[in-house]
C-alpha cells in the first residue's frame, strides 16, 4: 500500500508521519495522533462533526486526505481550548446549555469561532446560516444561536481580546 510522508503542525506541535494515500484527515487525527475531540459521524461531508481548522480555514476532516497535508497547520478543538481562544464561546455554551450530548459540539464550536472571526455582529439569521452545515440532533439549534449571539455581544462590549 502506498504511503506518503508528511510533516505538519498540529495544535502547535510538529508531527511527522507516513500515511496511506486513502486516509482522511479525521482518521489521521483520531487514529494516528489520538486527538479524539473531533468526531466522525457521516464520512461524506454533510454533518460537520469532523470540522477542524486547516491553514486558518475550517474544513471537513472527512473530505481532506491526510497525504495532502505536508507543510500544513491543523488546529483542533483541543488546541483552541488549550490556547484559550474560544474560552468565552465555551462558557456561553455551558451557561446556555448549547450542548447536550456533546458529539456535535467540537465541530459546532470550530464553525462558530470561524463566524465570529469574520463577522463581529452576526444577526441570528447569519448565525443560523453559518452553522447550517453542522448537524445537531439534540438541541434544535436555538440554544446554540443564543450562545453565539451572546458571545458576539460580549466581545463587542468588552473590546478587543487580549
Amino acid at each position, binding site marked *: 500500500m502506498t504511503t506518503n510522508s508528511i510533516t505538519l503542525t498540529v495544535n502547535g506541535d510538529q508531527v511527522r508521519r507516513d500515511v496511506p494515500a486513502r*486516509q482522511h484527515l479525521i482518521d489521521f487525527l483520531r487514529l494516528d495522533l489520538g486527538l479524539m475531540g473531533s468526531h466522525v459521524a457521516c464520512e461524506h461531508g454533510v454533518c460537520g462533526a469532523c470540522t477542524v481548522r486547516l491553514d486558518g480555514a475550517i474544513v471537513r476532516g472527512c473530505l481532506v486526505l491526510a497525504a495532502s497535508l505536508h507543510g500544513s497547520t491543523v488546529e483542533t478543538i483541543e488546541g483552541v*481550548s488549550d490556547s484559550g481562544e474560544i474560552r468565552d464561546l465555551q462558557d456561553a455554551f455551558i451557561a446556555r446549555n448549547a450542548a*447536550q450530548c456533546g458529539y456535535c459540539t467540537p465541530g459546532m464550536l470550530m464553525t462558530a469561532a470561524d463566524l465570529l472571526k469574520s463577522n463581529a455582529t452576526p444577526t441570528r439569521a447569519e448565525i443560523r446560516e453559518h452553522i447550517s452545515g453542522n448537524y445537531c440532533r439534540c*438541541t434544535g*439549534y436555538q440554544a446554540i444561536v443564543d450562545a453565539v449571539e451572546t458571545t458576539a455581544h460580549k466581545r463587542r462590549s468588552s473590546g478587543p481580546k487580549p
Partner: protein
Amino acid sequence: MNENIDPRALDRPNSYIGKSVPRPNLPKLVEGRGQFVDDVVLPRMVHVAFVRSPHAHAKINAINGAEALKIPGVLRIVTGRELAAICDPWVAVLVHLAGMKSAPQYPLPLERATWHGEAVAAVVAESRALAEDGIAKVDVDYDPLPAVADMETALAPTTPLIHAELGDNLCFQRTNESGDVTAAFKAAHKIVEATFHTGRHTGVTLEPRSILADYNKGSGKLVVHHSTQAPHMMQGVFAKHLRMPEGDVRVICVDVGGSYGIKVHVYPDEVATVAIAKLMGRPVKFIADRLESFGSDIHARDHRINGKMAVDAEGRITAIDIDDLTGIGPYSVYPRTSAVEGNQVINLVGGPYDFANYRAKTTVVLQNKTPTCQYRAVGHPIATTVTEGLVDLAAEALGMDPIAFRLKNLMRDDSYPRTSPAGMKFEGLSHIKSLGRLMDMIDYPLLRSEQDAMRAQGIYRGIGFAAFIELTNPSPFMYGIGGARISAQDGCTVRIDPDGSVVAATGVTEQGQGTEGIIRQIVAEAVGVPIHTVRVVTGDTQTTPYGGGTWACRGAGIGGEAALQAGIATRAAALRVASAMLQASAGTLDIVNGNIVDRATGAVRMPLAELTRIVYFRGDTLPPDLPRELMQTRHFITKEFPFAFTNGIQASWLEVDVETGLVKLLKHWVVEDCGRIINPQLVDEQVRGGVVQGIGGALYEHCAYSPEGQLLVGSMADYLVPMAAEMPDIEVGHIETPTRESLLGAKGAGEAGTAGAPAAIMNAINDALRPLKAQVLAQPFSPERILQALGKVPT
C-alpha cells in the same frame, strides 16, 4: 471547578431544585474531552465490520471468506453457525400483548437474510479500513426470494410468508374498545374522516451505534463499552445469551452521543461483536458507519391510519374510530418489541378529550425491511397527528374556530383522577390551563389578522395547534408484566466522603438530556451541601445500583425520586451522628452549605468534614452502638399509576410557498406540564430538541423503499435532517402540576416536543392551504406532496 452559578439566585442555601444550574458534564464536552466509545483504545484491540445483505429477502447458500483472509491484517471471518454455538437466539414478544408472535433471531442469521442491510457475516481485522477491504472480498452465494414490502398486502393469501413457522406475517393485532361506537356514529350530527400516513423514519444519532467488547480469558470477565441507554439491561442480555453469570459482565457508557430510543434496543450486530470478543479473547470494536446506520438502526413510525370522528350539534366529540396498520421488520426487536408503537397509538388517540365512545384497532405486520422499534415519543406523534387532524376537520365541518372546538372538548382540569375511553389513567392534568397559557403567548387574533392580510397578497400562512398527552415514569405495566427483564424501578446510593464531599451513584443514565445535572441538584439539596461538592456516578453496572437506565422519560421522575430519598436518608444518618457528637436532641440540627448548624438559629456547629473525619478515622470516640452509615441507598418504583401522564399544547406558525411547495417555519410555541421542574433550562431544551426532531419527521425525513424492498437512502444527502437555517425559534411555557406519587413530584419531559410537533405542522399547513381547498395527510409533507395537493404536479 468553574461553576457559573450566582449564589444570589438561590433563595435559600443549597436550594437547587427548580433552578437552571449549569450541567457538570459540559466543561469537558465543550473542550472535546468527553469519552465516547470510539475514543476508547485498548491493547490488542481489533475491529469488526459486517458483510450486509443487498437483498431484501434471500437464502444464504454459502459464505466464502478465503479471498478476504489473504489480505494481510484481516484476521477472521465469522458466520452465523459459529456464533450460534456460543450465543442463544432471542424472541421479542411481550405476553401481555396477547397473541404477539415473532421468530427467533440470531446475532448473524443461519439460513436467510430478511432485510436489505442485515449483517450476514463478520470480518475481523486490525483496522476498520482493512475489515472493509475484507468485506469486498467475501463472496456470498444468495438465492433471492420474493420480498414482502407492502404492508397493505402483507396479510393477503398470495403474499409469501417471511417465517413459515409463524403461519402468517402478522406480529400483533388488538382492538381497544369502550362505549358504543356504532350507535354514536349513527346518531352523529357530523362525521369527519381521513386517512393519515406517518412516514417511516429513523433517529440519526450523530454518534453512530458503537460497542467495544473485551473478554478476559483468564478471569472469564467481559467488559463492554457500549453506547447504550440501559447498561444494566444490556448486562443482563449479554449474560443471558452468552450463558454467563451477570456478575461476570460489566457494561460501561460514559458519554453517549445522542440516543432518542435508538440505543435502548438489542442489535444483532452488537451482540455478534460481543460474542466475537468472547471467541477471540481480545477487545473487539464495532462502530456503525452512516451507510450501515440507515439500514440497521431501528426505523419507526411507518403507519397508515384511517380515522373517523363523530360530533354532535353542540360541537362535542361523541366518538372516535380508528384503524391503524403498521409495517415493521422481519423480526420484532428485543426486548421491548415492535408491537408497542401500534399498541400505544390505540391507547393514546383522543387522549386529551372528553368523550365516551372509542374503538381503535392496530394491525402490526412483518416486512422484509429494516426492523422497527421504540423511537422518541413512540406512538405519540402518530396518535396526536390523527387526533388533532380529526379535531381540525371536525372544527371546520362545524364552522367552529379550532381553539373554540378544543376548549369545548378538552378534559376539564378539575376532573381528575379519571380514566380515558382508551383505558389510560390520568392524574392531575392541566389541558385547559395549558391552552390558556398558550393563548397568552401567541396573540391569536393578531396572527389571524396577519394571515388574512397576507392571503389578500397571495401569501399563504397558517397556524396549527396540537394538544397532546405524553406517558412518562413507566411502571412494570409497560414491559415487566410482559416478561421482559426491563426495570421500572431505579436506585441511587449517596455517600459522604471524608472531606465532606458527596458522591451519588445512580441507575439512570446520561445521553445529553442532563441526568447527571439534575441528580446532582437533587442530592445537593437533599443532603444540604454546595452543589460543586457533589459528583454523580452513572453509566457503569459495576458501580451503580441496579436500575433501568433512561427511556420513556423516567430519569427525573423515577431516578430523581430515588436520589431524593437516598439524599434525605443520608442527611438523616449524618444528623444522627452529629446529635450524638454535639449532644443535641433529635431534630434540632440541620445540614446547610456543608455545615452542621442549629436548625433554629442557623449557627454553624461544625463542618460536615469534621463529622466525617470522626466517623471514618476516629470511630473510637463515638458511642459504640451509634449507627454511622453515611452511605444510603434507596430504590423507587411507581405503585399507583401505570404511567405518569403529562400534557401540553403546541402551535406552529408557518408559510407555504404555493409555487414551490416549500414550507417556511416562522415560529413555534409549546406549553408543557411535566409536574415539578427540577431544572427549567434543561426542560426547555428537551422540549426544543424534541420539537425539531418532530419537525424532521413532518417535513423532511423518510426511509424510502423500492417495491422490491430496497432501501433507497444511504447518505445524509438523501435522508434530510433539520439543520439550523430552516428551524424556527421555539418559545416554551410551563404549568407545574406535581404528581402525588412521589416526594419530588416530577414527571418526565423528554418526548413532549416530538409528540406534538408533527400534528401542529400538519394542521398549520392545512390551515394555510384551506382557501385553496388543498390538504396534506401523508408525512413527510414534502414540497412534491404539497404541490400534488394543490394540483400543480400529478400524483
